[in-house]
């Protein structure tokens, strides 16, 4: 059985007197251990709602979400589920609470009731993993956006989750911060942690195993990055845009250059062009 399994999941927001908003319309999805998947879709497509359904921050109004065999609707399992599936949000300022980096990262393991020695060890490992060990005594608010986001990631890692869901973790960062965070995620994936990466930047899905395009709460397409980049109509219909490199490759092919369609990155394109000479 899949590590995270969604079966015909529906979710509707009902708030006060406002009309109910149906955010997720019958989604089936299976995420295996060690998968690296991307979920893309425009604003309002249900991406963040879906993310929250993965670790019981929300529970479906219809259908079922199973995490490692546990039903997210089972209140007794909530803490076990959240320990397995951690979340990193868009704005790190909203999730950093402590006055020192070290305390921030220790917060989760402390709540798990681990012995102090083990907590220290986990904090050390987590900070090393995100490359922030020299900042352990810094107040988080003195860090750059990318550094803050890495501390937020470290505090999740210290809980030893099997899966981390990233909800647009680079949306508020500048290019430098974005690279830092993407490199960190790359490293986590290398350690075998299951990664669910939510974004609306199509260029960020190039390195994933599987991409899911969401629109109006439904899955429009599920496939490899290459499959997705070739399904131009569906991408555009979902209000998304192909990254510049596949667009350029397409143009060059149409003009008669014998380039393969599998080219997704700058480096691959440069290599392929040089090989033609």
């Amino acid at each position, binding site marked *: 059985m899949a590590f995270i399994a969604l079966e015909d999941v529906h979710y509707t927001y009902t708030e006060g007197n406002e009309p109910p908003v149906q955010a997720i319309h019958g989604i089936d999805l299976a995420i295996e251990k060690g998968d690296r998947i991307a979920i893309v879709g425009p604003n309002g497509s249900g991406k963040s709602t879906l993310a929250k359904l993965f670790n019981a921050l929300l529970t479906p109004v219809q259908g079922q979400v199973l995490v490692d065999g546990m039903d997210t609707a089972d209140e007794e399992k909530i803490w076990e589920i959240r320990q397995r599936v951690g979340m990193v949000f868009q704005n790190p300022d909203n999730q950093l609470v402590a006055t020192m980096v070290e305390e921030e990262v220790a917060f989760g393991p402390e709540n798990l009731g681990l012995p102090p020695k083990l907590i220290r060890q986990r904090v050390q490992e987590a900070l090393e993993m995100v490359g922030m060990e020299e900042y352990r005594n810094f107040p988080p608010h003195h860090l*750059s956006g990318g550094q803050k986001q890495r501390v937020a990631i470290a505090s999740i890692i210290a809980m030893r989750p099997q899966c981390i869901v990233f909800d647009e973790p680079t949306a508020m960062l500048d290019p430098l911060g974005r690279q830092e965070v993407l490199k960190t995620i790359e490293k986590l994936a290398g350690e075998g942690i299951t990664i669910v990466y939510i974004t609306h930047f199509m260029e960020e899905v190039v390195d994933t195993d599987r991409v899911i395009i969401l629109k109006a709460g439904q899955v429009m397409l599920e496939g490899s990055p290459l499959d997705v980049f070739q399904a131009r109509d569906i991408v555009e219909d979902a209000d998304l845009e192909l990254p510049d490199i596949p667009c350029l490759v397409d143009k060059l092919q149409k003009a008669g250059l014998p380039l393969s369609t599998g080219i997704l990155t*700058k480096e691959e394109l440069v290599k392929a062009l040089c090989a033609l000479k």
Partner: protein
Amino acid sequence: MRIEIKGVHFRYFQEEEEVLKGVNMTIRDGEFAALVGHTGSGKSTLVQTINGLLKPTQGKVFLDGQEIGKDISFKEVRRRVGLVFQYPEHQLFEETVFLDIAFGPKNLGLEGEELKRRTRRAMEFVDLDYESLKDRSPFGLSGGQKRRVAIAGVLAMEPELLILDEPIAGLDPQSRRRLLDQIGALNSQHGISVLLISHRMEEAAVRAQRVMVMNKGEIVLQGTPGRIFEGREKLLEIGLELPPLTDVLWQLKEKGYPLRTDLFTVEEVAREILQCWGGFRCSKISP
């Protein structure tokens, strides 16, 4: 409106390092300019000295030749220079879209038909339908719509210069494009000067006539987008990225192919590569 910034320094606290270290910069009348730099480079501080929210600790800012704070009051400046902050939708607060957008002009003393006219016009500028949206709660709108309501609130003040701090951050690609098109139209059709702050080079490049790059409180590069990209090393050194397509041209040039490196759109870059690869005519030059 023309803005001249002359030798502006700024520090928030006496004992702290300067955030602006002698900035000289001009925004020309009717221009679409972009200010690029990464977080902490001083961009947001600089623009607040332009609209009179912050007073330089040293140096002067001129608006159409009049010195801000001396020949022209801060209040007057804030009326004529509209500043849209990052994530402006967080500043929405009124019960209806109409009331939110009308808030500024109402404070100027406008009322009745004139207030309605201004609000309707501001909504039209950003492509929000007046009739169907004016009575809606701004909080029930989509992310892109909320952002446009917030921008309309600034436009309703009828500013001569519009400064937008990361106006498209967090929006999906289609919303980003639509919003940038609308800002472009404000500039080209209505003559409003625009200063766009961004850290996404490619988006600034496609729209702006001139780009200024800021680093550690100083303007380090300025010129047309193409010209800025010629300064690749400088950009990389300060942690900014070239647009990916421009970078492909650079990488090919480094391999010895004689290509231009001041291009950044798919069409231009494809044409440049095809000139060299299409007929397999061009040959490598030794570096």
